[in-house]
């Protein structure tokens, strides 16, 4: 992504010198206009509308008052929102780190040649393609404290039964477990793409030097695939912050509010409670949070590149 952005700036600079793009540009506008109309109608206009709504006290079915930034001020003293923020951070960190670590491991494994590789990779990516709600229903049944298959499997190895998503302390780890199972494949695919593009020379010289497998991974493979790992980490972080389907379908934020992340809180404010004004302010803050997070991640990625270049 930054690659495209940076190259874009360079390309534009070059093109304007040659005068090529400026000459070609107008002719391609008609191709873009229909999509632009749709993007304005369903993405950009709703955004402007949300900003406007966020400055009103407005419950659906009641009169609307302009209140300026009062909804935003209210957020900072809203304990449910602050708790949801902390929960979202914890959830995001766990649901990013675990899939990234496992995904790199999976990519290294699938990079080897072995029989049925394509089929096994196909099975491995099924959790991320399958319909989240359908998956969630099956997990609910597997989590059942008395009749669920998970507690039975635990009992086979002598671990006492767990309450999983039905306990306040167990719910976040259980949901993170599902999210890890679901999204490790995406990290795997991205890093696998990186592994496929690696040069062979460093490996040949390492082989001559008699380096061990772990040393080769640590000193050659890992630095080379780091940019891909960073891309995967960025995508995973953004998706983990926004996680909704699985949490909603399994717990609806419960028990109590023990698994209520910002996204779930946003949903319940805006729809069951019909508090359009406050919900919009929440949506704006949430959006800023997601974009800020993405920018920090992109910055970290650039930094990691400089560090690598300095080595």
């Amino acid at each position, binding site marked *: 992504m930054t690659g*495209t952005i940076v*190259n874009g700036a360079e390309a534009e600079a070059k093109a304007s010198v040659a005068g090529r793009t400026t000459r070609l540009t107008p002719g391609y506008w008609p191709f873009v206009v229909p999509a632009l109309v749709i993007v304005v109608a*369903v993405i950009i206009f709703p955004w402007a509308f949300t900003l406007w709504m966020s400055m009103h006290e407005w419950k659906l079915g009641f009169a609307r008052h302009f209140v300026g930034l009062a909804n935003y001020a209210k957020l900072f003293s809203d304990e449910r929102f602050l708790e949801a923020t902390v929960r979202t951070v914890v959830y995001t960190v766990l649901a990013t780190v675990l899939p990234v670590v496992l995904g790199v491991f999976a990519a290294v494994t699938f990079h080897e040649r072995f029989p049925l590789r394509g089929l096994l990779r196909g099975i491995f990516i*099924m959790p991320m393609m399958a319909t*989240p*709600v359908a998956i969630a*229903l099956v997990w609910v049944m597997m989590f059942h404290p008395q009749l669920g298959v998970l507690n039975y499997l635990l009992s086979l190895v002598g671990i006492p039964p767990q309450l999983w998503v039905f306990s306040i302390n167990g719910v976040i780890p259980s949901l993170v477990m599902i999210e890890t199972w679901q999204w490790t494949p995406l990290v795997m695919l991205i890093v696998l793409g990186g592994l496929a593009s690696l040069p062979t020379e460093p490996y040949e010289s390492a082989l001559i030097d008699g380096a061990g497998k772990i040393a080769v991974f640590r000193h050659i493979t890992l630095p080379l695939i780091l940019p891909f790992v960073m891309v995967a980490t960025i995508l995973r972080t953004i998706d983990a912050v926004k996680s909704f389907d699985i949490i909603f379908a399994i717990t609806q934020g419960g028990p109590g509010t023990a698994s209520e992340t910002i996204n779930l809180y946003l949903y319940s404010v805006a729809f069951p409670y019909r508090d359009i004004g406050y919900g919009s302010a929440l949506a704006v803050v*949430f959006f800023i949070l997601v974009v800020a997070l993405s920018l920090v991640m992109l910055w970290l990625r650039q930094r990691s590149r400089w560090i690598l270049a300095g080595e």
Partner: protein
Amino acid sequence: MRRILAKLPLVFSLIVLISPTVLFFVWMLSLSLKYEIDNTAYPPILIPTEFAWENYTDVLESSSFAHFFLNSLIVTGLATLMALLVGVPAGYGIARMQAHKASIVVMIARMTPALSFLIPLFLMFQWLGLMGSLWPQIIAHLVITVPLVIWVMIGFFESTPMELEEAATIDGAGRWQIFTYVALPIARPGIVVALILSFIFSWNNFVFGIVLAGRETRTLPVAVYNMLSFEQISWGPLSAAALLVTLPVLLVTVLAQRQIVAGLTAGAVKGG
């Protein structure tokens, strides 16, 4: 012998990685083929003595399933079709103009939480009197499908060779002629990737449905979720329904694995 021993860590890693997924889907299948007495047995039964095929026939024969299936098909079909109609030319235009700022807009659309579009869209649909029809969901699904198609197509058109198009220009072809007769045929594999991904993500979508769908306009994910919350839960039929909802996607995943992998990693790998 030594060669087999050397392969052991690989085999072990593969088992660790694959077994949760295999066990999950096998268990899903098992749940869907058992009578309630077997599903609530402890210790759990993997393969029952008698298969409960009627879990499937009941779901398939109920008129509501056919109705919701049709809803899903219409919403996903139209949202994907419309996205391809506007998204493929847009991807072409953006790639040829080298308008990288436009691709940033597409990126931001991907980052934005879907729920934040829903408040204004919900109000707009109410004012327009569209609630109760499938249009709110079709239009809302464009939020996902249009950026996705544009994103995949930009990557694809950027990597196709320009020589043919330049030759066509010299022969006096206009831009639309070049697009229709030169660029589109070459882009067919890219369009297939965009189509598949757009279909899957739209089919799987849940959040737009719970806000915008009424009793009659539910798509399959919403319908199956309502089975969980409002009816007495019986595991067999519920699992059968869940499996049927996700079956089209799983089939596409297995059959078109190469295209899916290419599409999902296109943007990411290019940036690295």
